[in-house]
């Protein structure tokens, strides 16, 4: 995460601005949590408690929301999040094989982060580049028409940057 070096307190200050803006809006909890996920990198127990204190929304409700939607994570993601599109168009063109190869190369299951904190592997829903199927993303960079044998080189590239 880009924000990993900043202290939590500083990040909470950023979050305070968002909470102030949304806390009296009907349905404001989701935007607050979406921003918290982006600013802090996860909505762990501490973040859930913080939002609860500031808004008066019970932490049970916040936990319920955090575990319902796939966007929220309860622990921080790695420096690079690798997403393999498992939408139908990519799947029928073999994205499962790419996913399996990545899982093998990284030594982690989907949704988990490598021990060095560098990569998080995720299976994503359709990212809408069906013309590039099978597609994968690394922190938003899109790689199209990926074959299982390309995986190693792509991972190496990011590993070398560190």
């Amino acid at each position, binding site marked *: 995460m880009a924000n990993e070096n900043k202290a939590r307190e500083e990040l909470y200050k950023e979050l305070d601005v968002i909470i102030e803006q949304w806390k009296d809006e009907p349905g404001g909890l*989701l935007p607050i949590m979406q921003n918290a996920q982006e600013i802090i990198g996860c909505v762990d127990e501490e973040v859930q408690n913080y939002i609860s204190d500031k808004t008066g929304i019970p932490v049970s409700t916040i936990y319920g929301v955090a575990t319902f939607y796939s966007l929220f994570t309860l622990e921080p993601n790695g420096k690079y999040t690798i997403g393999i599109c498992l939408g139908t*168009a990519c799947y029928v063109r073999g994205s499962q094989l790419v996913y399996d190869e990545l899982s093998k190369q990284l030594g982690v299951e989907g949704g988990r982060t490598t021990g060095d904190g560098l990569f998080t592997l995720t299976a994503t829903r359709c990212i809408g580049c069906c013309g590039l199927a099978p597609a994968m993303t690394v922190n938003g960079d899109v790689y199209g028409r990926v074959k299982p044998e390309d995986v190693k080189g792509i991972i190496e590239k990011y590993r070398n940057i560190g």
Partner: protein
Amino acid sequence: MKFYRSQVLVCAGTGCTSSGSADIIRIFKEEIEKVGLSEEVNVIHTGCFGLCENGPVVIVYPEGAFYSHIKLTDVPRIVTEHLLKGRIVTDLVYSSDSAHKSKSMALEDIEFYKKQKRVALRNCGAIDPENIEEYIAFDGYKALAKCLTEYTGEEGRDKIIDIMLQSGLRGRGGAGFPTGLKWKFAKAPVSDIKYVCCNADEGDPGAFMDRSVLEGDPHAVLEAMTIAGYVIGAQQGYIYVRAEYPIAVHRLRIAINQAREYGLLGNNILGTDFSFDIDLRLGSGAFVCGEETALLASIEGKRGEPNPRPPFPAVKGLFGKPTLLNNVETYANVCQIILNGPEWFASMGTEKSKGTKVFALGGKIQNTGLVEVPMGTTLREVIYEIGGGIPNGKKFKAAQTGGPSGGCIPAQHLDVPIDFDNLSAIGSMMGSGGLIVMDEDNCMVNIAKFFLEFTCDESCGKCPPCRIGTRRMLEILEKICDGKGEPGDIEKLEELAINIKNSALCGLGQTAPNPVLSTLRYFRDEYEAHIYEHRCPAGVCSSMLRYTIDPEKCKGCSLCAKNCPAGAISGEIKKPFVIDTEKCVKCGACIEKCKFGAISRK
């Protein structure tokens, strides 16, 4: 607006952006500046042209030259040759055959576009979606003005509902409920507060119709929602859009701000006493939120769990108030119906399904992309004439429509005219418009398993038939794909499927068994081959595959043995090699390396 002699339109939809169109726009501007043409040539980023397979796509007007697969290094040539010297760079122009023999110079000559009829996608790829003036120049906000000035009072608002009813427009989100009727129901309740919502939570894997409309023509949705607000008496609208669509979200934000600046959203729109505003709410990745009651719960900031209907949202919806909810593509048709009249819209399509439908064509198809055709067009026309057929000379096996709620359509039904009722009759559904083509290399049991994995994962867990039932179905499918299927499994699947359909709470659960039922209906033989013969006819389910070397064809070069990661291949040079099936991990490396085609996978 300024006058330019040439317009360079660069596709900035998600597909082309992923293949680098933002840099192409930048280089175009730089190069045009270099040759001193900035005053004469305008570079515009537009929404999706539809032919995503050939992205990044650039069109240069007035010639209408359609450049495809453009690389950054091609840009200087187009600028100096085409824009400066007036010579079209023919080797970069799109060609329907790879040998570049037949050159299709203009959009309308391209096979892909010939059979299409663009209504919802009218402005996609034609205007700059971030410039409200371009939308207005293409009759934008004219329908709203017409409604507010010509259809005034209670009578006028009822007249607009009549127009929608006469047009025969049905909801494009999947269920096909008549839009006019929905508007009528939402208008009926008396309430100070009402809401108009737009479902842009396009979750079907492999579908991107709504995203392309939002990216290419966001004002069309805003205008239609405003009209709907006027008709039912709402003051506030919400667009619920997937957070995974950053470009669409960005353009919607720009569009909303521009509309507010121009007085087309906000208080006293166009000087009348009608006030209406629209805000965005982002989805956070939950497929079930495409279901209307779940979507409304999510806008309220809760877990996106569905609720039993009735009460329907038209009576008691968002924050307990009467709410109208339509999908993006439905809204995208509204303004055209009001401007051109209901008869015009009803003249397209079939008896019970009027107008056009947008499909996201993907999978094993030559021209992956976005197409809009009149209802009643056959699948064969869409797949072979517009889509260019199946690549690599493979045989068509099935077309999947309706995503995880739909079904697979086999070759024998390729000539059925596509509309809501016909697709239901053959065991699939229109759905939101994803159309995935599969060829002989796809295993239909595996595809059914793929969709069940999806619905299992996305089941919200509120009702047991969906939470537990889909899990049990998935377990049986996994067993079959693993080569451990038993007699009676098919019957168990069918029984579970029918029970889930009859008892699940919401549309997600009720339709979850469809992919299994439709593949059982048309591809039962594949299930039987898996169960009784422990064989996957398409060669996909790896645990049932056996790799063997044909001793007749093997020259004994040892290349396969050298590349085998498991050390499962052995033999003497210049004599036939053999594969030890116990050690084989079925990776397929040997097949790829063999120069003599001696290795087979069955």
